[in-house]
């Protein structure tokens, strides 16, 4: 007898990053590097070839002293849903190496399937994807410190933030042992979320009203999951990529920096998406 396995209602893991709390310390980047066995080079200054799944960008309002303001913006993979899971990278991958999961809402990257054409890197409007130009070289003895839960990548494949998917797998293991089928909010948190000393990153299921991230973001499904929170915005929201990483700021110039607004355009207005 064929049957589709009974699933919990589909989840949609996402993030809310409060830019007014972020101090730009970079702890999230460090935590991500070590958690996910991200390779590094002797000289990491060439950002065209270095890899950082989580990157902190520095924004400025461009005004002269004393009106100068800066803001730090951590950028993981935005895990775009697009329309029905057709995120920009998933749509172009010819190898089914990257995929959108309807179960978790996570955009996956399978390194052993990827053959390195880098279409996805061209398609991603957030530059969240990185190419391995070399095989990873770890300093002597460091291989023993690598996480066994994350497979190190080889030369010639693309990699990106996975929302620490291995942590979800491990949390599900524990749930199975306790005869449960759902993963509690606290059991699955990304490394960057836990590392942030300012508590600027909140991670959880956007579909679950009990989760903090849902309460902050309050996504509106009728408006392409746009947040009902007036402080919230998404990067390049008007492209229709429908990302699951939301940013929060009380400063108008920061929210304005999230998209390419024309001088006469107001922030927070999402034009009707054509599809």
């Amino acid at each position, binding site marked *: *007898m*064929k*049957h*589709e*396995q009974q*699933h919990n209602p589909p989840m949609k893991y996402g993030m809310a990053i409060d830019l007014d709390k972020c101090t730009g310390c970079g702890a999230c980047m460090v935590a991500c590097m070590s958690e996910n066995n991200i390779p590094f080079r002797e000289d990491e200054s060439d950002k065209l070839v270095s890899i950082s799944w989580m990157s902190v960008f520095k924004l400025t309002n461009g005004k002269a002293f004393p009106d100068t303001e800066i803001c730090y913006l951590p950028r993981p993979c935005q895990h775009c849903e697009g329309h*029905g*899971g*057709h995120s920009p990278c*998933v749509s172009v*991958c010819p190898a*089914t*190496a990257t*995929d*959108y*999961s*309807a*179960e*978790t809402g*996570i955009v*996956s990257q*399978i*390194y*052993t*399937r990827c053959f390195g054409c880098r279409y996805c890197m061209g398609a991603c409007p957030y530059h969240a994807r990185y190419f391995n130009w070399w095989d990873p070289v770890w300093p002597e003895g460091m291989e023993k410190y690598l996480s066994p*839960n*994350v*497979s*190190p990548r080889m030369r010639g494949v693309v990699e990106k933030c*996975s929302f620490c*998917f*291995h942590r979800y*797998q*491990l949390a*599900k*293991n*524990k*749930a*199975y*042992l*306790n*005869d449960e089928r759902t993963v509690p909010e606290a059991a699955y948190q990304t490394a960057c979320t836990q590392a942030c000393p300012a508590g600027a990153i909140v991670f959880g299921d956007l579909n679950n009203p009990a989760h903090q991230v849902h309460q902050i973001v309050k996504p509106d499904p009728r408006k392409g999951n746009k947040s009902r929170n007036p402080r919230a915005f998404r990067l390049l929201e008007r492209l229709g990529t429908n990302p699951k990483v939301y940013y929060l700021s009380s400063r108008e110039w920061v929210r304005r920096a999230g998209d390419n607004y024309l001088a006469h355009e107001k922030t927070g207005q999402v034009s009707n998406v054509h599809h």
Partner: protein
Amino acid sequence: MSTLDDKAKGVMDDDAAHAEGGEDTGAGGFIILFFIIGFAASMVLGWVVFPQFLYSQKQQPFSFNHALHVGEVGDGCESCHFFREDGSFSGIPKLAQCTECHEEPMGETEDEAIFVEQYVTRDREVPWLSYSRQPDCVFFSHVAHVVGAKMDCVTCHGHIGESESSRPYEYNRVTGYSRDIWGKNIAGFKRNSWDRMKMDDCAQCHKEAGIIHTSSVQTERDACFVCHK
């Protein structure tokens, strides 16, 4: 010029002989014979000799008697291969589990002596070679199958619990993976569910059990990210 003419004449003679279907049956027989010999030789080379080159063997540190232990312990496989509290699977036991019983030698076999002298008294972990180690890119959840789906260990691991000694560990010289993943049969045929541990075997069992996920947007089937990492 005369030699060339002679050759041409010879060829013409041969052609004539073929056309008449005369005395060439002997030569044809040889060709068939050589073909059969060559075919048999390449078959032997491919199916018997090549696997010998493809796989290398290692011996376990000492021989382990599963049958004896299963008789002694109370909880079957899970006595030593248990789940940790966080849901992960312990796999091959650490020395600490063994020494719960084996503080002193418990038998008079040579293997027991090696174990106690080399590992217990020196407090060293036994460097067991894992027959069923999957490639690094694979995430396999034991708890989902054993606790969630209530499957038996034998389904994938065979009757290892009845073995009285450790067989040699064979691994592929090219990939370094255990031979148990591809299976003993070089052609890839399998009779029992535990003969191979390739992705196709996972998929086959999932198909037979009717467990179909549809979480992948690309394929509308199982998403890769369920079992790969």
